[in-house]
């Protein structure tokens, strides 16, 4: 077996080697720089995801300006209900309190989301059949939303 008769095999081997080299070069150019930094992923993704804008400010920020409401709320049954739970996402409001004003809430629609009676809800959770309970009146006719328990009623129970 002379070299002349296997030369063509070397040619194809060379073609493969060239192809592989080109692949390695292209790879070094295209793989993102932060890839593999912390694991098999683009390390920069962590910061990109963490830097996304926030829509809900979180109740701690509300307390900075609205301490008076907090004083009422923390004594009542809604002490652990976060402000934005009812008032919606308000990070925009904290950044520009004067221009971004939260909408006034309609208690006729808001409160029943949690308090409408439902057999699937835990039995110890306060719930009512709103049609019978309030005869169509909005809930804040009788209840103060930040501290909803009616003390006179409570004493008779």
């Amino acid at each position, binding site marked *: 077996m002379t070299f002349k008769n296997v030369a063509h095999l070397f040619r194809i081997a060379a073609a493969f080697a060239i192809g592989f080299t080109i692949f390695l070069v292209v790879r070094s150019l295209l793989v993102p720089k932060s890839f593999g930094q912390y694991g098999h992923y683009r390390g920069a993704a962590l910061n990109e*995801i963490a830097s996304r804008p926030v829509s809900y400010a*979180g109740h*701690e920020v509300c307390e900075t300006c609205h301490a008076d409401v907090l004083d009422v709320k923390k004594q009542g049954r809604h002490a652990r209900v976060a402000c934005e739970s009812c008032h919606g996402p308000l990070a925009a409001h904290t950044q520009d309190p004067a221009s971004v004003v939260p909408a006034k809430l309609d208690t006729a629609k808001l409160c029943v989301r949690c308090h409408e*009676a439902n057999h699937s809800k835990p039995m110890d959770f306060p719930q009512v059949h709103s049609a019978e309970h309030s005869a169509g009146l909005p809930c804040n006719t009788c209840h103060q939303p930040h501290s909803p328990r009616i003390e006179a009623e409570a004493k008779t129970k």
Partner: protein
Amino acid sequence: MNLTRRQLLILLPAAAAAWEHVMAGTPENAPNYKSAEHWWGMLVDITKCIGCGSCVRACQLENHVPDGYFRTWVERYVVQDWGFERVHVDSPDGGKNGFPDLGGDAKSFFVPKLCNHCADSPCTQVCPVGATFVSPDGVVLVDPKYCLGCRYCVQACPYGCRFINPGTNTVDKCNLCYHRITKDLTTACCEVCPTGARQLADLKDPADPVHEFLKTHSVQVLKPHLATGAKAFYNGLDGSVR
């Protein structure tokens, strides 16, 4: 609430300062957040969930989740006596607007579902390129710039928490509000939950109340036989829950 201009002049800078404090926690802005100090999970208390759907709505608003897809959702179970096969489950629009009353006296309860941020996650195992991964602090994240949309991870997730975002054609799912928890905030769903049925848990923080809770309650994870290392712990989970 009525503020005088004078009160506003005092409070505005205070608000700005408070906001700065919140923003200062970003990995980019300040080295306050060190991922090695955290190992995130969530505690879900079935006994407290009232199926109000606040979490589903808040998540959608916080994370711009497209309609018809869910990063988190609530299921309702109605269990007839002892037959786990005779269980009725529904999740109207993911529970986003609550649930209609079904009446009756069968055992019934709500189960919030979300990504379990598995420590041995089967979804990150199958990603062909490394577009989804477990972060150093235990959150399973998706890199939308690298994902090819092959959907292998969606198939591999036993909990059905992944979907393809039609806007970006990449995979999307609950990322434990990573942009919030790295800034000392809690997740949007935990923030708005009125009964505290959902609570963010930092398993590496010795002061986190989850440790005391786990010591004193019987908790389970979903589909334990698949050994996913799920980190969403359910208190009061019934055997009928899938």
